[in-house]
């Protein structure tokens, strides 16, 4: 079965490896990802922060395109895109006046049957058994702190696939891939995403707290499913090290990269070498392929 | 056919049943109902595509009493019933008119019946209830005859008509039904033939107070037809006998079916399909829709 794919802007640049690993993993699992033709920005942060109508229109333009392309299930790997798309959809479904307004703006009818899902949901849709079946490598050296970030499982009344306060879906995926997971407290705390460029001080502090809690609870890898989280956690670690010399560098992987590793793919294939913090492969994985 | 006759005759001989209500052939394309008490008479029993009456209308309390309670040991009453007639029997059981133990259901795998006597059975002459029939096998029976058959596929004109009426404006609908009801001559054939119209004294026969004006005037006709349809909504099993019996060809089936569709849509309920599911009339769900209410 094919799923629609809405990459989002980060996937084309700062989160290239996410895009790469996602495509590779799903190709290997036997599922096609059909990229949405001529997709545009979802309007995350800046648009909804300053212009509500614009943000709805930008997000729903993509839904219109998906409808035209005949996509029923569309994966949006970026948590911000995902949240933006489902929030806009929810708003127009609850408030028909908003729907009319936006349809007028776009001069198009907005289809109601395009379901936007995130990467975790996608893994659950294809079934976790599929991941364990395709396991080639032992990942039990990895003690993963699964970091959901703020937007992936919120808000509850729109998004019901996992608990908004104590989610477990990413842990289930990581465990299906053979990694050990830890229980920790900051899996839903915000990394400061939107302030990445303007208020680096905020981002640095928030990200530092997240990383520290992961380390405190015994993690040696942080797993994310959002390009913004990844950027902040991965890229900011050098600055952290400079500011707090005792800071422990900890690699940050995308969930797709983790699954890719378990399926026997290489660090380079998955784009893990593009990260700022080195993922020292030998340290975590016994190079023993499972038959 | 022979097996049916043999079975019926055995039942009567063994005194397992007091009588067999069945069809007997009148002519080539015509059968009539018969209540057979003598085993010898069973030789005229038939079952084919021309058995279009719903015999459950004969299952009245009075008849069961008269036929089955004569000897010391109460006997059963056997009835040959098409799968759709079994629905009527189920409804009657649920409404306490007969007891399951009192009757012996001889049913058949059905391949459809003609819409009226004298017609050649074919796709074109198929009764409208058969076109959308979903139960070619009976839901309850004591004896089953015949192989599974296919009902010829035909256009569901009744549904098309319902949709057509649905798309009319309110005034047009009113005019349509006014014209139809205007034809009514208050012969009450619809009532007589309906297995579920079992009341000894019908609401329309009540005069103090007068519920429904009984002259065949427009106003009385309107009330009669509305009340008839309402009393049968969520009860009617869709046997279509009323429409067939109506000498003025009022499309009673249209209304009955519309109400059945609504019952299915709003409450997922189809009358006469199961003895376990409680009837829609007389039950409620706190979660029923509140849409209608300000």
């Amino acid at each position, binding site marked *: 079965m094919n799923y629609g794919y809405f990459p989002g*802007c*980060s996937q*084309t*640049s*700062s*989160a*290239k490896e996410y895009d790469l690993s996602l495509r590779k993993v799903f190709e290997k699992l036997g599922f096609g990802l059909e990229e949405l033709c*001529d*997709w*545009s*920005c979802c*309007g995350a*942060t*800046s*648009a*909804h*922060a*300053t*212009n*509500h*109508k*614009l943000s709805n*229109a*930008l997000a729903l*333009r993509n839904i219109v395109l998906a409808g035209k392309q005949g996509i029923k299930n569309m994966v949006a790997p970026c948590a911000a895109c995902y*949240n933006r798309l489902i929030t806009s959809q929810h708003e127009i479904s*609850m*408030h028909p006046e908003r729907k009319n307004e936006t349809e007028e*703006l*776009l001069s198009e009818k907005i289809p109601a049957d395009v379901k936007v899902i995130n990467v975790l949901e996608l893994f659950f849709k294809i079934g976790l058994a599929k991941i364990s079946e395709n396991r080639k490598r032992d990942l039990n050296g990895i003690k993963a702190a699964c970091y959901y970030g*703020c*937007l992936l499982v*919120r*808000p*509850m*009344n729109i998004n019901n696939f996992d608990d*908004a*306060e104590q989610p477990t879906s990413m842990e289930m995926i990581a465990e299906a891939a053979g990694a050990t997971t830890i229980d920790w407290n900051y899996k*839903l*705390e*915000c990394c*400061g*995403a*939107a*302030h990445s*460029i*303007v*208020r*680096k001080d*905020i981002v640095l502090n*928030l990200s530092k707290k997240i990383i520290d809690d992961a380390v405190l609870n015994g993690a040696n890898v942080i797993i994310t499913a959002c390009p913004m989280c990844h950027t902040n956690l991965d*890229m900011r670690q*050098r*600055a952290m090290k400079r500011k707090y010399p005792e800071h422990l560098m900890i690699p940050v992987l995308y969930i797709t990269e983790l699954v890719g590793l378990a399926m026997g793919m290489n660090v380079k294939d998955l784009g893990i070498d*593009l990260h*700022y913090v080195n993922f020292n492969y030998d340290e975590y994985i016994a190079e023993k392929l499972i038959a | 056919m022979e097996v049916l006759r043999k079975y019926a005759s055995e039942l009567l001989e063994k005194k397992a049943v007091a009588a067999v209500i069945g069809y007997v052939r009148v002519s080539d394309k015509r059968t009539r109902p018969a209540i057979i008490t003598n085993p010898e008479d069973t030789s005229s029993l038939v079952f084919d595509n021309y058995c279009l009456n719903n015999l459950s209308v004969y299952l009245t309390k009075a008849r069961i009493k008269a036929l089955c309670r004569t000897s010391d040991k109460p006997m059963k009453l056997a009835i040959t019933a098409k799968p759709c007639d079994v629905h009527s029997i189920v409804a009657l059981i649920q409404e306490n008119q007969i007891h399951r133990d009192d009757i012996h259901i001889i049913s058949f795998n059905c391949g459809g019946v003609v819409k009226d006597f004298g017609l050649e059975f074919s796709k074109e002459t198929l009764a409208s209830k058969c076109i959308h029939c979903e139960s070619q096998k009976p839901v309850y029976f004591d004896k089953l005859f015949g192989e599974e058959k296919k009902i010829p596929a035909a256009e569901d004109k009744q549904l098309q008509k319902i949709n057509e009426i649905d798309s009319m404006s309110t005034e047009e609908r009113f005019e349509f039904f006014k014209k139809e009801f205007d034809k009514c001559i208050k012969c009450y054939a619809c009532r007589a033939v309906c297995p579920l119209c079992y009341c000894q004294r019908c609401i329309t026969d009540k005069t103090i107070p007068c519920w429904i004006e009984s002259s065949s005037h427009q106003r009385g006709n309107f009330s009669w037809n509305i009340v008839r349809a309402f009393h049968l909504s969520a009860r009617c099993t869709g046997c279509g006998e009323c429409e067939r019996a109506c000498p003025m060809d009022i499309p009673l089936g249209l209304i009955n079916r519309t109400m059945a569709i609504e019952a299915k849509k709003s409450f997922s309920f189809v009358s006469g399909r199961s003895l376990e599911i409680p009837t829609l009339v007389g039950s409620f769900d706190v979660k029923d829709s509140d849409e209608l209410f300000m």
Partner: protein
Amino acid sequence: MGAYVNKDAKKLQPSFVSANLLTDTLPENNHTPFQKNNSDIPEEIRNRTFQDVSLCYQCGKCSAGCPVRYYMDIAPNKIVRLIQLGFYDEALKSSTPWICAGCLTCSVRCPKEFNLAGFMDAVREIAVKKKVKVKEKDILKFHKAFLNQIKRYGRLYEIGLVGEYKMKTLDLLSDVETAPGLFLKGKLGLLPDKVKDRKSIKKIFKKTDKKKINKH
């Protein structure tokens, strides 16, 4: 806030008199009566969020859980309070809506199911529309730069964004540590990734720009 009564006042004022919540100085005979404010702001917030600010009962759970609370000048719940009471200027001038990262922690936990993150979006939008002097102007500049990129290419062109933002803020030297790395790793494309049907994007911008949101 209490009930300040000016005994010297010749005309008897209503006894419930406003104090400026942001300063703790209240010149005794310089008070303004607490009166009905006919602003369209509550209505506008309602139009945007489909919720009324009166829903909030000021429990403070939002502020308690806010990850960026420490960087705000006024607690998020107090912004709602200010709007409830009609102190719009104070609310719109605050840095709080701009610091809000939109992480939805408050919205998820709110006992009254008030969508505070959406409310903050609305406050920002109103502040821009009313041309309030924004405290966190760099954040606003960033948003504008971001939207300009989208307007131009339909997608985010990160180099363009950073470049434009830096030109706007004249903050040229920060991020020197990350950008070269990004280039080296081939993560930042040198050319923007464009949407083909940029006309439709422009149209969206034009239609939603009636209030001149992005220019001032």
